[in-house]
């Protein structure tokens, strides 16, 4: 029996060697691969265990992590959640999702980005708990508050941008949502909130300032067409166009009318400056056909149309369509047809004009601060490109100032300040409510802020809502907030 027992022992040994091999395979050889498996909640919990950095605006944290008792170790808390929702977004381990800055700057906030490698090593050596870095936004809480209050319950968005730098000062969208409700760790509750938000016909999860269902820019797009006219060198503000009460589109049976329903002023002809000031459609449609869709598209793209921006939130590109025939081109002359724009894009048009013709790349972040609050990374101002010559920009500015002081955008007037502006009232369909716009900047001679306001659903007044009545005052309030800082 001795021989058999020795052999049996060898079998036992072989069984245990197999177990040694199996555990080594899992715990050492394939450990990293298993940690990266998407079903591995332990790795997920580990990343949540890092105290996430804060999102800071105007010196105060608008998103921060506080210790919690559950497996996630920390609970994300948002300040003024509805106001900041389009900016911060939310992050939730239960939903396994993140949006806004939380998503775009996740690696920095969670301390896992490549530039934080040394920081992590230092934390390991010094025995500190790992912490994420903080993101300092360019947004100004005062301006954000002004925009949020001015927009109120209206459906739409407001964006404010610093023309010389491209720094975004305010980004508001409405209806918004409570990010804290989406950050809670009760899976049933958070899923219920999420499902409800998704099912809401008003789409509160859309960030209408940089995305959502894009609106036609309407008359605000006339700024781009006028820019293209000046840039061509063939037109001045005094260039004249015929002034009929209605104009049949070339090769078409359709007619174009002015918003007033009549001619643009009393004269036989109308100047480009007056067409812009009274926001007449017929002369702009004629101008568009004369310029051709290609020239307009080129100018539009110099302002940022058809381009991708990461600010670092991903911006839905605004579009000027390709290969248009004359009637289609005519419609784009007053921002209809298939032209679509985000408020950010229209703010960039104003900002480009304000900044002597140079469009700056928009951005939301100034700095990244380490857990020790030392600057880890700074973001510089960068140029997107030149849309206009300095002279043409000056000419555009004068026309826009006239628009506010003595024209269609009078609702944006600020006492003692020269405000440049342009309204827009875009049609969405024969009976659909208008989209109301305002874009502009102030002060005209030394611009500190450019804004764009969009109001969807006719600001609740169908086709009766006027852009100067509803959109211009919001733009004015935001510009005032910047000027009064």
């Amino acid at each position, binding site marked *: *029996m*001795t*021989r*058999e*027992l*020795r052999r*049996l*022992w060898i*079998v*036992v*040994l072989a*069984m*245990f060697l*197999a*177990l*040694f091999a*199996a*555990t*080594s*395979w*899992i*715990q*050492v050889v*394939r*450990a990293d691969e*298993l*940690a990266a*498996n*998407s*079903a*591995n*909640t*332990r*790795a997920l*919990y580990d990343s949540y265990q890092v105290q996430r950095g804060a999102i800071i605006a105007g010196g105060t944290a608008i998103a921060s992590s506080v210790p919690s008792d559950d*497996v996630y170790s920390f609970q994300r808390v948002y300040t003024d959640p509805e106001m900041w929702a389009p900016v911060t977004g939310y992050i939730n381990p239960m939903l396994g999702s993140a949006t806004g800055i939380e998503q775009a700057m996740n690696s920095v906030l969670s301390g896992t980005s490549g530039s934080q490698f040394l920081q992590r090593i230092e934390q390991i050596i010094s025995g500190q708990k790992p912490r994420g870095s903080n993101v300092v936004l360019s947004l100004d809480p005062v301006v954000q508050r002004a925009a949020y209050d001015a927009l109120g319950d209206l459906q739409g968005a407001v964006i404010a941008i610093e023309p010389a730098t491209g720094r975004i000062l305010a980004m508001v969208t409405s209806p918004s949502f409570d990010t804290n409700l989406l950050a809670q760790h009760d899976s049933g509750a958070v899923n219920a909130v999420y499902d409800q938000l998704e099912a809401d016909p008003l789409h509160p999860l859309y960030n209408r300032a940089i995305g959502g269902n894009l609106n036609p820019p309407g008359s605000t797009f006339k700024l781009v067409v006028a820019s293209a006219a000046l840039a061509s060198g063939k037109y001045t503000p005094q260039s004249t166009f015929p002034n009929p009460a209605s104009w049949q589109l070339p090769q078409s049976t359709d007619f174009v009318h002015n918003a007033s329903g009549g001619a643009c002023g009393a004269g036989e002809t109308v100047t480009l400056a007056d067409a812009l000031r009274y926001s007449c459609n017929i002369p702009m449609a004629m101008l568009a056909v004369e310029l051709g869709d290609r020239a307009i598209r080129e100018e539009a793209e110099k302002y940022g149309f058809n381009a991708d921006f990461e600010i670092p939130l991903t911006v839905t590109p605004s579009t000027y369509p390709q290969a248009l025939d004359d009637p289609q081109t005519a419609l784009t002359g007053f921002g209809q047809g298939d032209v679509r724009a985000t408020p950010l894009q229209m703010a960039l048009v104003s900002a480009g004009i304000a900044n002597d013709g140079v469009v700056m790349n928009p951005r939301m972040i100034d700095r990244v601060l380490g857990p020790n609050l030392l600057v880890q990374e700074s973001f510089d101002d960068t140029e997107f490109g030149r849309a206009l010559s300095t002279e043409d920009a000056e000419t555009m500015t004068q026309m826009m100032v006239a628009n506010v002081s003595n024209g269609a955008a009078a609702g944006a007037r600020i006492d003692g300040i020269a405000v440049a502006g342009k309204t827009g009232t875009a049609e969405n369909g024969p009976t659909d409510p208008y989209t109301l716009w305002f874009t502009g900047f102030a002060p005209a001679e030394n611009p500190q802020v450019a804004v764009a306001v969009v109001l969807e659903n006719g600001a609740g007044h169908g086709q009766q809502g006027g852009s100067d009545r509803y959109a211009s005052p919001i733009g004015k309030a935001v510009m005032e907030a910047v000027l009064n800082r």
Partner: protein
Amino acid sequence: MKATDPISTMDTAQIRADTTVVKALRKLRMPQTQRNRELALLLLAFVINGSALALVQLGALGEIQWTILIYVGALAALTLVLHIVLRFTAPQADPIVVPIATVLTGLGIAMIYRIDLYRGHEGWDALSTRQIAWSAIAMALAVTVVVLLRNYRVLFRYTYLTGLAGIVLLLLPVVPGLALQDAGAAVWVSIGGIFTFQPAEIAKICLAVFFAGYLVRTRESLLSTGHRFLGMTWPRAREIGPILVFWVLSLGIIVLQRDLGTGILVFGMFVAMIYTATGRTSWVLLGVGLAAAGVAIAAQLMPYVGARIAAWWHAFDPAMIEADRGSYQLVQGIFGLAQGGLIGTGLGQGRPYLTPLSQSDYILPSLGEELGLIGVFAILCLYLIFVSRGIRIGLTGQDDFGKLLATGLSFTIALQVFIMVGGVTRLIPLTGLTTPFLAAGGSSLVANWIIVALLLRVSDAVRTSPRAVIG
């Protein structure tokens, strides 16, 4: 010269008397070497268990609480009682098995307690409290066995009776009125709904006794006949009978009680013992072939066996992880082990509670997550030493019955560890057994400590009895 004769006779007597005195003296001067070794190892075991519990409290609570004294003290006191009983009743018993069983039981309690802490279970709701109570019962029974079973050969007399008892115990869970309904596999017996027990754990001991006795009796006939084929002596049809009987019994367990693990365990133990008894490789081949056929049949007939195999093979398929009866637990356990890595997260600092059944079936991944590969290796080494000691007791055994009994019992432990650890590490499909000594569960603890007691008894007999001439 006759004169020398009386002197030489007297000398012999003198020498004999002297030897007796010397022996007695030696016994006085070097008392109980084995037990002293055991005591030293036990003290080490207490230190290990105490440290584990202290680390658990530090890791999970951030402080050491007085309750640790209950956990450490209770187990230490119980083991010391067994130790003292051994000093009086079985002084020559193997000194290593008790310390190993103590460390394993203690580590199990530490991990069970650690998960109780996370879940906020206290008092009688806490599995760790129950585990300590069961440890007390298990060790009391071990002491009883050591005290009452002075001569384990008595068991040989009751070979068939214990065999019958084993089979009855195996069948208990399917008896109406005794079966516990809500469990997946029908392996539980509930008496009055209060006291639940897994009789299969005790049955495996009864069957080991029965196999040993039966094989000693039939060994000659099994050995003396056979056909030569493929260079091996194959048993005649008549001798194949017993293995077929146990094959059918194991299949019955798999089918009736939906308990793949116990079926494989019983059959594996029988094959190992019949091989040890006869030395015929043909039995092993026959056994492995029958086992493979049995699993293949079961996989076809029983959906749960097929599901287990599918969950093993496609474990990381997301659909399989999500699926009902899928691989969620298995994959969670593996993620836990991977999270532990080489050195582990530290006791009380991982998340073993994310794995379902982390205190019972998945106790090893739980320990592996917090103690790392190093800890897993240490635990596996303890098992390997335990089993090796058991086989060594079999090697040095005086009689075939003792040899076979010690071998069978220790091989059961080895097979059970292999099936469980191999199952949770995806080496083989997972089957529901308990990890000896570690896993939460009274039946298993009681059974394994009785195995410890039997090994102690057999090993004590080995060293006390005069060396036998026939081997």
